[in-house]
């Protein structure tokens, strides 16, 4: 399994999907439903894309307000937008 990738940022990002975690979360939320085998991989993909969009939006907000650090407000504003977008 692809465990980690060394990126130029000197941060090891694990590309592994926390399948157990996802399954557990889903089960906790909807005990009556079942998740298929590769379903959680797609859920992971969905999360990745969500986080990616959120990060991009937060970054944009931070750059617009000319801050060097991403603030809580930036994230909050970004979350509002992206969560609205991510409504099924």
């Amino acid at each position, binding site marked *: 399994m692809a465990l980690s990738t060394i990126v130029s940022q000197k941060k090891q990002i694990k590309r592994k999907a926390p399948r157990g975690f996802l399954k557990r979360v889903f089960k906790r939320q909807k005990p009556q439903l079942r998740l298929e085998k590769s379903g959680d991989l797609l859920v992971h993909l969905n999360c990745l894309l*969500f986080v990616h969009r959120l990060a991009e939006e937060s970054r944009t907000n931070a750059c617009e307000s000319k801050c060097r650090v991403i603030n809580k407000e930036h994230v909050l504003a970004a979350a509002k937008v992206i969560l609205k977008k991510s409504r099924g």
Partner: protein
Amino acid sequence: MADHNPDGDPTPRTLLRRVLDTADPRTPRRPRSARTGAQRALLETASSRRLSGQTKTIAKGRSRGARSIGRSAHVQARGHLEEQTPRTLLKNILLTAPESSILMPESVVKPVPAPQVVQPSRRESSRSSLELQLPELEPSTTLAPGLLAPGRRKQRLRLSMFQQGVDQGLPLSQEPQGNADASSLTSSLNLTFATPLQPQSVQRPGLARRPPARRAVDVGAFLQDLRDTSLAPPNIVLEDTQPFSQPTVGSPNVYHSLPCTPHTGAEDAEQAAGRRTQSSGPGLQNNRPGKPAQFLAGEAEEVDAFALGFLSTSSGVSGEDEVEPLHNGVEEAEKKMKEEGVSVSEMEATGAQGPSRAEEPEGHTQVTEAEGSQGTAEAEGPGASSGDEDASSRAASPESASGTPESLQARRHHQFPEPAPPPGAAVLSSEPAEPLLVRCPPRPRTTGPRPRQDPHKAGLSHYVKLFSFFAKMPMERKALEMVEKCLDKYFQHLCDDLEVFAAHAGRKTVKPEDLELLMRRQGLVTDQVSLHVLVERHLPLEYRQLLIPCAYSGNSVFPAQ
């Protein structure tokens, strides 16, 4: 102008003077006699070399030669004072400015033109960056670089000394003043360079940091608390009569009170403790000192059982300082824990017998968020290292006993409180019966389900890390917490949507089609960008193989469609 320093110390001033004396003020283009022309050439080369090279020997040699030749040109040079050439200006400065004084002269009338600055700057460029500031400052100072020139040599020395002093941390207050340069700018430069570092180091040379007075204060405050709050009876679960005679005084009381209290208060305390540990689940190191404080503070009011363990262990910790705490109140120990919460983290590394202790703590600190037990485990380490083995072993067992009900409780959270207290109480009651040195207790402990929060946070942290990776910008911690909340909300939305989609298709299992539909609705999958494209882009190969049907040999497709 007589040469004050013939050979010994050719200051820039003297060199410049020589240049002025010997060199012809007029440009070389003017028609001159052959001799003066030769002089000129010689002098000019000499002067240029002097100016740029700054080698004493060459200067000396040239100056000697130039001097003898140049005296004849001296008169000529004099005659052209009114011309505004660099030479004349420099000469004026040399004439007017006192050699050794570095004070601001009122007599310097002419502003310093750029070329003059160039020459000094050339010299200064070889020095520290501080000095480089000098030419830039010239507009603001009437002090000409010519003035700087004479003083520069001394200034240079002083500055070098200054720099040495800075390195050595010597008091350099004299130096900037000595440098004066009235170009208070340079001195201010020096001062600004120096002052941030000097004042502290001057008083305490060698100590760059504040003395670690924190420790002393902690102990002092701690002792204060000990004496002040001679509160509740020592409700310490000390199983047996180990060396500490003082604790044993209190122990019988505790001993007896222990079985009584747990049932009533244990549940509440455990719940509260569980809740608190739950909330402090994420267990960031920073939070820990605060959490045990709240944790312990809450406990004090409710149950002794837990506090007992903490007390004993923390008393083991404080044992290094005093033995008294052992039979002091619970609150004192808690306050100790509070204060030592920070130092504990340092001490935990030092516990030589930590490993041996670790077995016990590990046993019951399965739940990592049981910070209290963590604290006690760490307290055990130093406590053991301090030599109070028995105390700490004693402490360990009751503490583990208290830890287990608490950890059990913490696990159950507030969902299943009932099963916890009885086993907890049972364990507690069984504690007294157990022998002293229970180093490796295979305790009958039921491992309940892990608490919801901690692995939840752990899983979320994976995505939070991805967030910070995608963002490529530094982030605040609060922002990261915000991201966690967003992820929580997102997961909820996700599950709801999937449920709806599955129900719409009349299924009870969520299939990849539902996921695809969801992504389509989110706008991630479009007619241009299909799901497979996204899968290929973002997921590693192994997952890709699982998701995208691919034909393999033998006319088989995996995964089967």
